[in-house]
């Protein structure tokens, strides 16, 4: 296991040095989407489907954008603030909608995402329909991370931060207790053994929104731009698709899903609707034929033999 980890680490750290710029770009996008998807998975694991994750990503991205352009502060400050803003918003909505589960929860998050987007679009001070352009790249040790390669390492760091945070959080007693919130009955039982379920839900949601916010900020500085047309409902659904295709069996699932589909999507450039078409077909096929997701493919094949 640890050997495998080492290999992965080495590949992530060294491969970009050997690859052309475009591969670096793809790697960056893959890492960004993987980090987002992990957040979606974190909620799915609890039995909660977030259909508005892009809203929280947007909160992080816009925080970074406004801090570095409007206030002219260092990008690092924005990147540091982003998870706090997104996390706070997540905590807020989480504690308001803690009674909800199933599709009701999903739709409440979805509505929130739409409101966030509409607000950024409506308020000129927040960029309005045009969005906020001209974000600087943060500088590290005096060097602005202009090149794809340099920025790749920032993205990698952020992705690892998000991933490790959520992964370890699952391992804590808190994370374990989050498995008791699936149904109304189970939640009642959870309370009867002393789990303060509403607070747990709110904090869990805050955690994965904070992760989304952090990555959103890094994403924004990569694009050097944020706008309401980026973090849409369709982005949120894409993330869910990644998670489902990868498989909910383990933490690796969303990573695989995001990596495979994002890399694939980058190849289907000529016409956007072919991209969504391919995504959708894969999704349906997986859901019907391979409920465990790509994750379960190996043992499925073994069983086939």
């Amino acid at each position: 296991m640890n050997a495998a980890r080492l290999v992965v680490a080495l590949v992530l750290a060294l491969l970009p040095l050997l690859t052309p710029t475009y591969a670096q770009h793809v790697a960056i996008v893959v890492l960004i989407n993987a980090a987002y998807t992990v957040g979606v998975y974190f909620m799915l694991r609890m039995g909660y489907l977030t259909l508005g994750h892009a809203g929280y990503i947007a909160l992080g991205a816009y925080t970074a954008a406004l801090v570095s352009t409007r206030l002219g502060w260092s990008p690092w400050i924005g990147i540091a603030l982003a998870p706090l803003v997104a996390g706070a918003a997540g905590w807020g909505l989480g504690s308001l909608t803690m009674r909800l589960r199933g599709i009701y929860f999903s739709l409440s998050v979805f509505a929130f995402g739409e409101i966030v987007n509409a607000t950024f679009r409506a308020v000129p001070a927040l960029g309005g329909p045009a969005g906020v352009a001209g974000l600087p790249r943060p500088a590290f040790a005096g060097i602005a991370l202009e090149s794809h390669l340099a920025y790749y390492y920032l993205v990698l760091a952020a992705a690892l931060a998000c991933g490790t945070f959520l992964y370890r959080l699952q391992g804590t007693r808190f994370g374990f207790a989050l498995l008791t919130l699936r149904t109304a009955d189970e939640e009642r039982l959870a309370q009867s053994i002393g789990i303060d379920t509403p607070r747990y839900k709110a904090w869990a949601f805050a955690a994965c929104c904070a992760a989304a916010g952090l990555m959103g900020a890094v994403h924004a500085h990569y694009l050097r731009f944020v706008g309401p047309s980026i973090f849409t409902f369709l982005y949120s659904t894409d993330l869910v698709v990644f998670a489902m295709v990868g498989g909910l069996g383990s933490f690796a699932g969303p990573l695989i899903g995001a990596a495979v589909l994002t890399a694939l999507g980058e190849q289907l450039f000529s016409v956007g609707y072919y991209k969504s078409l391919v995504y959708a077909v894969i999704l349906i096929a997986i859901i019907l034929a391979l409920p465990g997701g790509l994750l379960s493919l190996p043992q499925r094949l073994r069983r086939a033999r």
Partner: protein
Amino acid sequence: MTAALLAQGLVIGLVNGILYVLVALGLTLIYGIVHIVNFAHGEVYMLGAMGIYVLHVAAGWPLPLAMAAVLAASWAAGVAVERAFFRPLRGQWLQLVVASVGISLIAQSLSWVIFGAQEKYVPSYLPGVVQAFGVRIQLERLLAAGVALALVAGLYALVHRTRLGMAMRAIEEDEETARMLGVDSDRVASTTVGLGFLLAALGGALVAPIYSINPGMGLETILMSFIIVIIGGLGSITGTVLAGLLIGILQSIGALAFGAEAATILVFGAMIVVLILRPQGLMGRA
């Protein structure tokens, strides 16, 4: 805002509202029986309109024939989707939701490929404008609203007066018991989905001449329908109708008073408030 303007806004809101209801009703019906929020519903609506264009305008069929064909096709599609996707996934709400998202993506992207990006137009079924008390309203909208209204009434009767309706409500109450009482829940499920699809397609067909048509038109409608069924209460017909009219008016008056985005925020805000204060919706059972 002058009284005349307000009145005009109200009328437009009401008419749009009743048209939303047509689509939202299908959603709510399907949810009540199959317990799935069908994301593909907007695409059915789009294909309904697209169908009218292809058959009536492009192929030149007479309108009634085209209309009948579209409705039949949408019904069949509904039954097929239920068989192919909803039935095997019954009980797995997550997979169901995501599958319906997938179906909607497929339908939409295929339509972009097949029908292209050019806006399509359908000539008005009933040109002209009526004017009363300084309020002007297009005949075609009145027609659409009228048909929609009639259908809603019919649906209400169907659910509350017929055997099928009884079976539907029985399943909604308690599927297990209904099964034990010999209700063929599979048949009811596919019938319901067929019916829901038919309503959505009809909604599209009615709207076709009012607006222009493109493969993306489903998205906005489905978002609206979600808000409506949530506010009205998933599974409640009366609630859906009320919420539909409410949202229609909220949207048009809101846009009149504060502009389009403000109206959007208003509408989604209303949905969140309802979700927080009354998650089961205005008319939904807790």
